[in-house]
C-alpha cells in the first residue's frame, strides 16, 4: 500500500471521505453523518473510519484536502466575530450604504443584510489619497491611535483597515495596521490593500470585512483539526479548498478565509475537468445534480472559468441582477457556477393560475420525496423518475433504502395528474421535462450567453441525480458526448484530490495598453512572482512543480467591466503585448458579440496565480472486455421514454461488472451504489479505461 491522499467533503447530510492510494490509484470512499454542531467530529469520524478500512494509520497519510462551509455558515447564521473598521474621514458608512439597492423590487417589507461591522465600530481617521495614490491629506497618526484604542476598549476581535484609494498606495493602511498590531496584538487583522487590492471601495471593504468576520472562527476550526490530525500521528500537510478551485495551506486559510467562502461546489468542477482531461476536450460542462439543486460550471479552452465576484449569504441573483444586494459581496476569484432549484427533492406543484411548476421548493431529506415513505405527500423529481421506471425501488443507495413506487405514483396522480386532467404517466414525464427545461436554461446561460456553443462541449455528469438526466439534456442541447465517472455521488470528494495549491495575487493598475512596453508589463508582475515563489517555497513545493499563471484584466476605455486575458510565461516581447490586444478583441467578440478594434484598450488589473502542482490520483485501469455487456446484465424492466411516448423494455446493468470496451446500447440503465445512469434509445454508452461511461448518439 502507498501513502494515502485523503479528500474530505462536509455536506448537509453526509461527510464524505475519499482515500486514494498513491501507488495503485485505488479509491476508497466512506460516508458518515455530518455533525453540524461540531463539524470537526464528523471530519475525524470519516477520516478514522476510512483509515481503518484501508488498514492504515495516521503515519500513512500523505495529504489531507478539506472543503468546508464553516466560513459561509458563520455568515449565513450571523455568528461572525466582533469586527471593527478603520476608514477614511467622511466614509464610515461604506458598508451601511453598500450599493444603495434593494434585493427584491416589490417587497415593501424588505430589510438590508446587517453590516458585518456595526456602525459604532466603524471609525473615521483623517487622511486622504487621490485617484492616483498621491497624498492629499497626510495620515493623522494620533487620531488613528485614538481610533484603535477605541476599538480595543470595545473588545473587538478583528479589525478591518480600508482607506480610500489604498489599492494604489498602501502606505497609510500599513501605518494604521502597525498601530493595530501594537495596541491590539491579539486582534485578527484584515487590511484591504492586502486582502483585495482592487478599486471600488465598497467591494474592497466588503471583501476585507468578510475576511475579518470569519477569521477567528476559521482559525479555531483549522487549529482544532490540525491538533486532532497530529494526535492521530498524521503529520502530513493539511490543505483547504478555495473557491477558485485550488487549495491553500492551513496557514493561508487562517489568514485569508475569504478565499474559501464558496469552495463547496468548486471541487465538482475540478473533478469534471480531470475526468474529461484524457479526452482532450477543450470545453467541458460540469453538471452536478443532487437533492436540492443542480449546478452547472464551465471549463473553457482547458481553463476553469472564474468569476471575480459573488455575494455570500444572498438569495440567487438573476442574470439581470435581481437579488443583488441581498448578501455580502466578495471580490475573489470564484469558480463560475449557475445553480438551479432542480434536484431530486424539488417539488412539483400547481400554482394559483393552474400552471404545473417544478421547484425551487424542495422536500429536503425530511419528509423527502413521497417515495421515501416518511410522510411526504408532494411529488418530487425523484418520485417522477421512479414512476417512469427510471429508478429502481429496490436498489436506491445500493439497496440501503427501499423506495415506495406506489406512493410516488399516488402523489403524482392526486396532486398533479387529476387536477390537471393529465394521464399520470404524462404528468410524471412532464415533471421530468420541466425540470430538464430549467437545467437546459442554466446550461445555455453558462455557455451560449458567454459566447460559446453547447455543441462544442462535453458534458460531465455527477451527483446523485445527474447521470439520470444528463442524456436527455445533451440530446436537447446538441452536446455530442456525456461522461459519467464511477461513483458519481462522491465526485466532489475525489475532485478535491485533483486540485493544486494556489495563491492568487491581484492589484489595480489602470494604464493604457498601447503605451505599455514589454518591460513595464513584466515589472508589474515581478513582485507577485517573487512573493508567489516565496509562498510556494514555504509550502514545500519543489521548483519543478511550480507554475506562475499571469493574466491581465482589460477593457475598452470607458467600460466598467473587464475581461481576463492570459499573459504568456517567460520574457515578454512587443509581439506578446500586441497579441494581448488581439486576444482581448477576440474574447470580447465571443463574449458580447462585437469587438471595437478602433477603441483604446485599458489595463485595469494585474493578476498572478502561483500554483504548486500536486500529484493526481490515478484510477487503476479497468480490465479489458469486449463490446458484449451480457456479463453485467442484472435484468430488464419497463422504462417510460418521452421521445417514444411509451414504455420500452430496458436492460439494467451492474456498473461494477462493466469492463473496458463494453458497449451498452440504449435504452439501458446502468446501476451502481450511489447513482443510476440512463441511456436513451438511439444512444449508447462505451466504457473507457478509467471506468467512465461515455454516452454518444448511436450509429
Amino acid at each position: 500500500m502507498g501513502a494515502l491522499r485523503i479528500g474530505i467533503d462536509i455536506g448537509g447530510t453526509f461527510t464524505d471521505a475519499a482515500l486514494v492510494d498513491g501507488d495503485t490509484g485505488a479509491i476508497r470512499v466512506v460516508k458518515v453523518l455530518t455533525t453540524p454542531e461540531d463539524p470537526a467530529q464528523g471530519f475525524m469520524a470519516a477520516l478514522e473510519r476510512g483509515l481503518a478500512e484501508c488498514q492504515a494509520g495516521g503515519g500513512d497519510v500523505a495529504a489531507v484536502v478539506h472543503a468546508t462551509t464553516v466560513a459561509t455558515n458563520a455568515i449565513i447564521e450571523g455568528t461572525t466575530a466582533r469586527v471593527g473598521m478603520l476608514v477614511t474621514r467622511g466614509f464610515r458608512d461604506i458598508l451601511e450604504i453598500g450599493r444603495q439597492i434593494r434585493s427584491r423590487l416589490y417587497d415593501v417589507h424588505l430589510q438590508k443584510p446587517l453590516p458585518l461591522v456595526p456602525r459604532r465600530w466603524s471609525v473615521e481617521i483623517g487622511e486622504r489619497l487621490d485617484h492616483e495614490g498621491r497624498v492629499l491629506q497626510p495620515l493623522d497618526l494620533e487620531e488613528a491611535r485614538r481610533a484603535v484604542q477605541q476599538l480595543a476598549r470595545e473588545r473587538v476581535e478583528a479589525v478591518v483597515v480600508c482607506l480610500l484609494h489604498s489599492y494604489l498606495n498602501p502606505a497609510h493602511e500599513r501605518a494604521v495596521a502597525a498601530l493595530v498590531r501594537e495596541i491590539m496584538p491579539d486582534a485578527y487583522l484584515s487590511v484591504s490593500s492586502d486582502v483585495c487590492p482592487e478599486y471600488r471601495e465598497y467591494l474592497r471593504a466588503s471583501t476585507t470585512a468578510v475576511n475579518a468576520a470569519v477569521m477567528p472562527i476559521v482559525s479555531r476550526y483549522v487549529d482544532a483539526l490540525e491538533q486532532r490530525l497530529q494526535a492521530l500521528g498524521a503529520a502530513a500537510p493539511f490543505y483547504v479548498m478555495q473557491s477558485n478551485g485550488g487549495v491553500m495551506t492551513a496557514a493561508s486559510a487562517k489568514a485569508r478565509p475569504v478565499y474559501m467562502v464558496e469552495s463547496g461546489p468548486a471541487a465538482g468542477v475540478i473533478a469534471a475537468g480531470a475526468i474529461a482531461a484524457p479526452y482532450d476536450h477543450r470545453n467541458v460542462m460540469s453538471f452536478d445534480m443532487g437533492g436540492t439543486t443542480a449546478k452547472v460550471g464551465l471549463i473553457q479552452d482547458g481553463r476553469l472559468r472564474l468569476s471575480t465576484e459573488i455575494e455570500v449569504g444572498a438569495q440567487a441573483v438573476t442574470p439581470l441582477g435581481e437579488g443583488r444586494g441581498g448578501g455580502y459581496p466578495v471580490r475573489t476569484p470564484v469558480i463560475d457556477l449557475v445553480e438551479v432549484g432542480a434536484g431530486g427533492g424539488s417539488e412539483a406543484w400547481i400554482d394559483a393560475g393552474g400552471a404545473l411548476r417544478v421547484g425551487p421548493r424542495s422536500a429536503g431529506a425530511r419528509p423527502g420525496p413521497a417515495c421515501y415513505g416518511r410522510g411526504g405527500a408532494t411529488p418530487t423529481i425523484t418520485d417522477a423518475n421512479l414512476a417512469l421506471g427510471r429508478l429502481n425501488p429496490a436498489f436506491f443507495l445500493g439497496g440501503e433504502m427501499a423506495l415506495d413506487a406506489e406512493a410516488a405514483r399516488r402523489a403524482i396522480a392526486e396532486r398533479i395528474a387529476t387536477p390537471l386532467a393529465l394521464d399520470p404517466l404524462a404528468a410524471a414525464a412532464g415533471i421530468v421535462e420541466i425540470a430538464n427545461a430549467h437545467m437546459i436554461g442554466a446550461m445555455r446561460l453558462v455557455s451560449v450567453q458567454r459566447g460559446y456553443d453547447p455543441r462544442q462541449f462535453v458534458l460531465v455528469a455527477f451527483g446523485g441525480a445527474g447521470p439520470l438526466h444528463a442524456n436527455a439534456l445533451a440530446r436537447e442541447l446538441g452536446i455530442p458526448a456525456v461522461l459519467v465517472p464511477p461513483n458519481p455521488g462522491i465526485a466532489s470528494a475525489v475532485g478535491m484530490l485533483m486540485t493544486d495549491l494556489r495563491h492568487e495575487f491581484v492589484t489595480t493598475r489602470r494604464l493604457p495598453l498601447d503605451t505599455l512596453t514589454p518591460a513595464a508589463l513584466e515589472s508589474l508582475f515581478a513582485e507577485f512572482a517573487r512573493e508567489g515563489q516565496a509562498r510556494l517555497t514555504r509550502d514545500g513545493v519543489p521548483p519543478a512543480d511550480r507554475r506562475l499563471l499571469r493574466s491581465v484584466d482589460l477593457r475598452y476605455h470607458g467600460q466598467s467591466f473587464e475581461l481576463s486575458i492570459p499573459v504568456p510565461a517567460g520574457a515578454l516581447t512587443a509581439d506578446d503585448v500586441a497579441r494581448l490586444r488581439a486576444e482581448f478583441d477576440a474574447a470580447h467578440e465571443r463574449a458580447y458579440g462585437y469587438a471595437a478594434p478602433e477603441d483604446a484598450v485599458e489595463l485595469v488589473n494585474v493578476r498572478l496565480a502561483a500554483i504548486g502542482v500536486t500529484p493526481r490520483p490515478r484510477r487503476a485501469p479497468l480490465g479489458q472486455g469486449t463490446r458484449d455487456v451480457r456479463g453485467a446484465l442484472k435484468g430488464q424492466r419497463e422504462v417510460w421514454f418521452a421521445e417514444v411516448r411509451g414504455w420500452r423494455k430496458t436492460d439494467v446493468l451492474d456498473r461494477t461488472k462493466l469492463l473496458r470496451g463494453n458497449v451498452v446500447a440504449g435504452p439501458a440503465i446502468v446501476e451502481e451504489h450511489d447513482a443510476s445512469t440512463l441511456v436513451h434509445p438511439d444512444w449508447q454508452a462505451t466504457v473507457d479505461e478509467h471506468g467512465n461511461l461515455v454516452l454518444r448518439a448511436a450509429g
Partner: protein
Amino acid sequence: MSTIPTRALAADIDPVRFEVIRNALLAITEEMGATLRRAAYSTNIKTRGDFSCAFFDRDLRTIAQAFAQPSHLGSLAHIVPRAIQTYGAERLAPGDGILINDPYLGGVHLNDITLITPVFHDGALLGYVANIAHHVDVGGGAPGSIGVSSEIYQEGLVIPPVRFVKGGQIDADIFALIRSNFRGTREISGDFRAQTAANRLGAQRIGELMAQHGAATLAQYLDELLRYTERRTRAAFAEFPDGRFAAEMFMDGDGVSDEPVKLAAVVTIESGRVSVDLTGCDDQRPSPTNATSSQAYSGVVYVLKCLIDPDIPVNDGFYRLIDIRSRPGSVVHAQHPAAVAAGWEVAMQICDLLFRALAEALPERVVAGTKGCVCNIAFGGISPSSGEYFTYYETIAGGYGATLRTDGMDAVQAHFQNTENAPVEETEANYPVRILRYALIDDSEGAGRHRGGLGVRRDYAFPGHAPSFSILSDKARFAPWGLFGGEAARPAKYVLNPETDHARELPSKITFQLAPGDVVSVQTPGGGGTRSPLERPADGVVRDVALGKISAARARAVYGVVVDPATGALDAAASAAERARRA
C-alpha cells in the same frame, strides 16, 4: 394546502408545454438583458442596470419582460406599440431595428432610448423584441440632459421611430447624426452596439422557439399565458376591499416657478376591478416637472405589482387589467411641447401617493413616505486634465418608509428606482470630481413604532475647475410623511458650500454654473415612520443610539427613551417616566 387546485388552463393546452414555453420566454428576455448589460460601455447601464428587455407578439402585446429597473415596467409596454404603429409594421424587414425616444409617441424622458427589432419566421412578421436603456447624455441644454428646461427641444435630440439598424447593421448616417448631438460619444457607441446585440440574440432565440413549436402553436400558448396572468391578477385584486380611496400631496416647485405642484389620486376598487384616477393633478408646467403618460403609468403599475403575489408574471395579461384615467395637458399626462426631464420625479411621487391613498384599504401592504425623489445629479464641462468634454450622471439613495411590520431601510433607492451607486474610487478615477463625504444622515428618520430609514449625504468638490451642475430632485419643502401616527422624516437639503459662512440652500431643481472652489452637498430625505414613536420598543431605540443613527437627545425628545450618556445603556425608569408623561 387543503384544497387541491383544479384545472384552470384551457382544455387544448398541455400544461407541460405551457410551463416549458413560459420558462423559455423568461430565459430569452433575461439573456437579452445579460447581453445588454455585459456589452454596454456606460456605468449607468453596466453597473447601475438602467435598462429593460421585452418580447411582444405580432399584436404588440407584451408577452415577457425582464428588467432590473421597474421604472421600465410600463414604459416598454407603451412605447413599442405606438412606435410600431407610427412607423408602420408593413415597412419592416428582417434585421431591422427601430430606434425611438420621442416622449410624445409613447416615450418617457429623452435619455431612455428604445430599440425595437421585428422577429420574422418563414417570411412572416410574428413579433418584436425590444430593449430600453438610459443613455447618459442625449444632448440639450444641460450636461446629462438633466436640467431645468421649459420645452422638450431644450432637453436633447428627439428621435421619432427611425430605422437605425438595417440588415443587422447600424445605419452609419443616422448614427453619425446622433453622435454629433450627444455629449461623450465613446460611451454612446458601445451602448448602442450593446442594445443591437441584445435584440439580435432575442430575435434569434424567439425564432428558434417558433421553429421548435410551430408559429401557430406558439401563438396559441402565448394567448394562454396572457389569460393565465390575467386570471391570477384578477384573483389577487379580488382580495382588495371595495371602496374609493383618495389622497393628494404637493411637490416642491417645478424648477421654473416656486409654486408647489399638486398631485391627486383616487383609487376605486370594485369587485376586483382597480381603477386609478389622476385627473385631479395640476396642469402641465413650462418646466421639466412633467411626466408623460407612460411615466405616470409606470408609477401606477409599480405600486399595483407590489400589492399582488410577486410570482405573477408581467405581461399584457397584467397590464390590460390596469385602468388609469388622466387628463391630457396635466403634469401626469404632458402634451407636446412640454419638457419632461423631471418626469420620473413626478412618477416617483405618484407611487408614494398611491400607497398613502391605499393605507386605509390595505394597511398591511403599504409603506409610509419614502425618500420620494429620484434625485438626479448631473454635472459636466471640460475636463482640466484631458481637455475633453465630460458628463457625469447619478442618482442618490435615501430613506425607505416604514411599514406596520418593519423599519424602513437606510440608504436605498425607492419604488421603481433601483440603480446602483457609482463607487467613489471609480468616479474619482474617471471624472474630475472629488467626493468629500458619503454618509448616512443621523436623525433623519421619520420616527415611529417602526422608524423610517436614514437619508444620505454626498458632497462634491471640483479641484481645478468649475463645471455646470444640475439637480433635478424634490422633497426639500414637503417631507416624506409617516402613516398610522408615525412621523415625517427630515426633508431633503441641497446646500452650496455647506458649513461655511457663505453656505446657501439650493432649490431641489436647478441648473447652475459653479464658481471655482464650490462644494455641493446633496442631502436626501429619510423615510417616514408608522405609529407613534412612543410605542417603539426601547431596545430598538437604544440600539440606534449605540449605532449613532439616532442621537440621545432625539431619543429622549421624540421617542421618550432615555439613554445613559456614559454607558449607552437604557435608563428604564427615566424612560418609563418620560413616556408616561406624554401618554
